[in-house]
């Protein structure tokens, strides 16, 4: 057994290498100690995932997509998850956000474990604690933009005035006041995604999950959306977790996790770097880690 320390940028990550029991292949399993430029851990953890494993299929065809992932996200973080196709990014996100169940392991959000919850409780939890932004917008095209944004309140009742106030603030931040009474098919992709973001944020969630939010957008709309998300993250200290394969998008995050073959390979922190520097670092990390299979 070997223990190696790798220095990436100014952060020390310790890797414990061990021999896999089943194969001769050396797998990297990491237990990392982070020392990030004095920032350290920010108070409460919003999201904690421990030893998450996800196996698809039955015994003979079983495929382990997530191989025991540990993850912790603190309040106010903007976390990016990157990785090649098939590395388990979306599966991880789905498991963390309660849409999918882990085969093993525990997910806790705001101190509440998701594993014991029933369908109804989970739905309520998602509605109240989580926000979602998806690549294909996931707007209902029979509803206007405003109705789409206020959709979560169709169940969790909120006084109209309060809802209106929150709506006003959000659409102001996202710059979609003009299109409130339009239908999704009448507005651009970027506007749709900002609508989707507004819907995700309207219930003041503890955590926002974004799955490839810029995937279907042109670079200009993508940048606009990411700037909006960054702004909301900073101004309202909303915790955001974003899956992306786009290095530019990832460079808006405060921390980026790299996933490979179902395990966390490494992570990088933005710290005080400019977005350009951070982008460079992400690119470098990708190339250090082999880079093959990356879409970026």
């Amino acid at each position, binding site marked *: 057994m070997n223990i190696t320390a790798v220095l990436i940028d100014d952060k020390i990550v310790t890797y414990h290498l061990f021999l896999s029991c089943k194969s001769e292949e050396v797998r990297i399993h990491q237990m990392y100690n982070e020392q990030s430029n004095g920032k350290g851990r920010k108070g409460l953890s919003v999201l904690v995932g421990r030893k998450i494993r996800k196996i698809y299929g039955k015994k003979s065809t079983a495929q382990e997509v997530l191989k025991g992932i540990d993850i912790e996200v603190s309040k106010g973080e903007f976390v990016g998850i990157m990785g090649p196709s098939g590395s388990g990014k979306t599966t991880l996100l789905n498991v963390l956000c309660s849409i999918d169940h882990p085969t093993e392991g525990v997910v806790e959000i705001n101190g509440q474990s998701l594993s014991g919850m029933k369908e109804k409780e989970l739905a309520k*939890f998602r509605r109240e604690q989580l926000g979602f932004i998806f690549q294909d917008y996931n707007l*209902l095209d029979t509803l206007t933009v*405003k109705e789409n944004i206020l959709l979560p309140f169709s*169940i969790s009742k909120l006084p109209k005035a309060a809802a209106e106030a929150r709506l006003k603030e959000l659409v102001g931040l996202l710059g979609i006041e003009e299109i409130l009474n339009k239908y999704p098919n009448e507005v651009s992709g970027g506007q749709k995604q900002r609508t989707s973001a507004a*819907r995700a944020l309207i219930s003041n969630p503890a955590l926002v999950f974004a799955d490839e939010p810029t995937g279907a957008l042109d670079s200009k709309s993508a940048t606009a959306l990411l700037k909006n998300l960054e702004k909301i993250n900073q101004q309202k200290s909303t915790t955001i977790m974003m899956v992306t394969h786009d290095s530019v998008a990832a460079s808006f995050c405060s921390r980026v996790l790299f996933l490979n073959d179902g395990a966390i390979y490494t992570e990088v922190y933005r710290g005080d770097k400019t977005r350009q520097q951070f982008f460079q670092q992400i690119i470098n990390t990708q190339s250090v880690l082999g880079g093959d299979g990356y879409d970026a």
Partner: protein
Amino acid sequence: MTLSRLVFRSMRKNLKQYYLYFFALIFSVTLCFSFTTLQYNPSVTEALERSGTANAGFSAASYILYVIITLFVLYASQLFMKRRSKEIGLYQLIGMTKGLVVRLIALENVVLFLFAVCIGMVLGFFSSRLFAMILMKMLDIDMVIHLVFSQEAFKQSVIIFAILLVVIILQLAWMVRRVSLLSLFSATKQADERIKRFSVFQAVMGFLGLLFIAVGYYLSTILFDIKSGFLNNLFLNMILILVSTMLGTFLFFRYSVSLIMNVIRSNKKGHLKVSDVLAVTPIMHRMKGNSKSLTLITLLTGLAVGIMSLSYISFYSSGTNARQASPYDYILLNDKGTEFINQLEQEEIEYEQDSYNISSVMLNIADLVSVQLEELTLFDGATQTTVIPLSNLQQIEPGVQLEEGEAYLTSYVNVLAEIMPLEADKEITVKAGEIELPLYIKEIREDFMLSEEVALGSPILVVTDSVFEEIQSNNIEETQFTSQIGINLIDERDKNQAEELYKNLADERTIAIGENDTYSFTLESYEELRKRNITALGLTIFVTAFLGLAFLLTTGSILYFKQMAEAEDERESYKILRKIGFSTNDILKGIYAKQAFNFGVPLVIGLLHSYFAVKSGWWLFGTELVAPLVIIMGLYIVMYAVFAILSIQYYKKVVKESL
């Protein structure tokens, strides 16, 4: 891989999705073959001939049935082909020519039809026996029905479905050839151009729709009203009502629904409830595409319920009709048939009897009509009216009382009473021979006590005994009937024996009247009249019930199929909603509302249509409105509820699977 193997493979793979189309086919074959087998069943034909009922109703109905089945199968195939558009596109994408694709799908349909026809004929053959038994029961005929495989029925069904198959294949070929690859892939999304803003035009049309329906309903209520003057242009007005309601129904579905829904959702100013999200807005946006089929279904429902109600009213009223024609089980007139009473005594059959003295006066009925009758010359002048004394009426209605100079008018219901209601509280003058008597009409009553042959459908005047004597003594020569004896059996179980005795009276029942006995008739017992009514109407009722059932099942299925397709279309929406935190139950709440609309509205409007249609002229068909109408409507509601539950189950499955 050969073409046939490809066909079987894709069929096996698709079976889950298309089993409904397959069932629809089997069901149609069953319905068709069952009916034609019945039509050509020798024992049924024999029974019908014996009872003197025309067989023509059967062949007319079979053509209507063919039309229903054709429309149904065409619609079902179209709906299910739409869902396969992607598969067809894929075949073309991998390089199959359109001709080959058509051949592939044609072959598939041939196989499907072959199976469906085989299974359907077996089912139809056996269900035909059930229907035959029901028919015989309705006609009150005791007879064992032997099932015979009819070649004629077989031939007809095969021809019908062969033609249908050809039409469907042509339809498919046309569909495959017409559409480009690109549109094939997006066929299911055609409804996506549905999101449009709402214009003033739409609002006006929506309002017009409601107005047309209201006008149609209003006109139907005054169709037979003398005051409206409608009677003179009956046919034209019927057309007017029909067009108004049909157009109104279409506009209602095309515009009013969206209009109403849009008002509801606009009032929420963006703060929608679950039911708004899952019912109001999708319905609103789908109305453009759904309006035609919903209109058709609503009108068919209205038509079916209306016709079934009317024929059921006739059937249901056959007893009451007979009771009005013969208010007693047996009636004897003018001293004739006393032999019957002797025979009853001999056989020790218990009975009760009422005796009536009968006379007549000349009475001007127009005096009692509430409206001016300038246009209805029919009722001008005095008509001969049957009179009985009060004491006779008291035999059946012990409570009635008249002061001197007062009178009742009774036995006034049915057609005349509907068209020309009479008013009580009026002074009239009647003529008996040479004398004139002033009478005050105290009340218009609905009792029946005299044979129809005596009163001939006109009202009967009831006067005090002293006035009656005065009348009687003044016009002996004008009165054809002088007395009646009404006999009721005390024990129902003696009926068969008594019927036999009454039948054997022969001459004693034949009454001749008029100068030199120019007109003669034979009295019939209540039971004979009732049976005659039933045989005359049984087949009609059976045929309309069968067609009504076919209408119901096909329209219900179409609504169900449409809902299945909609559920599939909306799978994505459910996925979104569940992701952002709607539980299955939350979503289902919205779906219940949507189903209540989808099945409820065509049903309610269809029932309303039929209600107004039936209400306007039901009395032409019988004497009972409420019970038959409620029974038929209740049956329809139950059947629709079954379809609604089925589609809710389907939605449940889709919602559960969506995440």
